[in-house]
């Protein structure tokens, strides 16, 4: 019970830190600017301005949520260990796991707020795009919501990855760079694997490369699994099995990451 109160308090403090962080504030500002530009951006489309508007706003929310996660991880997790500000908390009568979970909870809170806020902004801008259009399709709001959840899933997974790397590394920039790497690999493994497996390559693929891609596919989080944007853009029906699989995959992966991070963190010397 007490642990929960600690996690909550830590999460709220982290949230405050995030909202007061200059870098994150400017990211949010940039996000608002981008969402405002949806109207202009979508107007260049010939046949599907509404689809482009949904596409553009969801992509903005996604990039924003991920960047916030990355920089929050850098400024509020890794840097906190580097500057020893976290030692004060670890010197309190709480276990390091509670500390870690508190930080993660803060990350979740901030991401949730950001995705919700920008999702709402995007949702408000879409009817504006629709105003001038004669036979635009209706917006699949349910799918739009699911796509936002997928974005949340991606950013939380990356947050857990940052946490793990923070537990491993001593410098603050390293976890940041490694998380960027995981993001890049994680969102492309599926595409690369499918491409290689489709046998469209000119030369037969060397087995070592195939092996490498397969390992990367199973080791790194498969972020494209959480990409429901296309369903929201074109109003397609989301296969429930796929959504369920993504949910379970995300949860299991996240729990594994957190467990690993907690184990590594427990052993670390906070000198």
């Amino acid at each position, binding site marked *: 019970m007490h642990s929960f109160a600690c996690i909550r308090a830590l999460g709220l403090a982290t949230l405050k830190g995030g909202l007061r962080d200059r870098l994150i504030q400017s990211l949010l500002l940039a996000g608002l600017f981008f969402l405002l530009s949806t109207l202009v951006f979508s107007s260049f489309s010939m*046949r599907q301005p509404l689809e482009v508007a949904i596409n553009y706003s969801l992509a903005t929310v996604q990039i924003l949520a991920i960047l916030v996660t990355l920089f929050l991880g850098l400024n509020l997790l890794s840097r906190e260990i580097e500057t020893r500000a976290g030692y004060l908390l670890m010197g309190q009568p709480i276990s390091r796991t509670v500390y870690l979970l508190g930080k993660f909870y803060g990350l979740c809170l901030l991401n949730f707020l950001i995705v919700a806020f920008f999702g709402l902004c995007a949702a408000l801008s879409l009817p504006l795009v629709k105003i001038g259009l004669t036979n635009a399709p209706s917006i699949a709001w349910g799918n739009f919501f699911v796509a936002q959840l997928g974005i949340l899933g991606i950013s939380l997974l990356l947050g857990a990855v940052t946490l793990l790397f923070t537990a491993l590394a001593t410098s603050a920039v390293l976890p940041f760079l490694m998380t960027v790497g995981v993001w890049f690999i994680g969102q492309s493994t599926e595409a690369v694997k499918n491409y290689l497996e489709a046998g469209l390559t000119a030369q037969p693929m060397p087995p070592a490369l195939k092996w490498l891609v397969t390992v990367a596919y199973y080791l790194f989080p498969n972020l494209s699994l959480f990409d429901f944007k296309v369903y929201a853009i074109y109003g397609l029906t989301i296969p429930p099995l796929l959504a369920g699989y993504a949910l379970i995959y995300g949860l299991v992966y996240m729990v594994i990451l957190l467990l690993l991070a907690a184990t590594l963190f427990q052993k670390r010397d906070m000198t």
Partner: protein
Amino acid sequence: MKRLLLGFGATGMLAWLIASYASLGGRAVAPLRFPSYPPVWALQAMSLGNKELASTLIFYNAQFYFGEKYAWRRETPEYQRLFVALDKATDLDPRNMDCYYFAQGLFSDIKPAIPVLNRLLQKGMRYRPNDWYLPFFLSANYYFQLKDPVTAAHYLQRAAALTPNSSLFASLSARMLYQGNQTDAAISYLEAFIKETNNPGVRQMLFKRLEALVAIQYLERAVAAFAKEHGHPPQSLTELIRFGIIKKIPADPYGGTFELDATGRVVTTSKLVEAWKNHDKRNQNQQAQ
């Protein structure tokens, strides 16, 4: 916070200045080339999980390039690169209707491009089974370019089944199926297409084609009137002027001249199409000079 806003403003201004300088000053000097994009899997990896947005951006780039190259600079666009880019964009997001629409606008005049264009449109049909435009485009391509009215009619029926407002197709399909006048059919198809187009470059291109078709239609009607009056077709187009049926022969917007062939049909010395194969070589020659 204030400083931040100021910074944002300043960067924005700077970007705007650079962009406007590039578009004014740079235009005359630098040759405008269309990029050749990396393979689709690399594009997808670089899109950072936003392949639909990447698809849209490629389409935008193609659209802006075409507008500037064709309408502004009056140069031959790099059609093949454009096609490859649109093909990649529709691999990234096979539902991106803009790409299919743009491709049809660009390539439906270019006979050698028809097979690949049709393959592209068929890809679109797989992913947009409820979109009547795609079978409509295919039907037009089969009819006008491949001279295959049966397949054209098949696609037109599919298109008609998908739209509640099929009056558009009524005249068109009648003309196609009953081997009516090709020029009339082509004009009504083009008019239907132009009505749905808002891209200035594409519109300009379509209007040029429409202008040529209208000229042919005009001459064909004059030839028919001459035949009715004299009981035999004219020897040449100048005969039409001599007998006072028309005042002058309209110009071919593609630069050729209209004449009558051995069978008595109106033809032009130009190909009535944009260049497809040799544009890259020509551009290179231009640069080399």
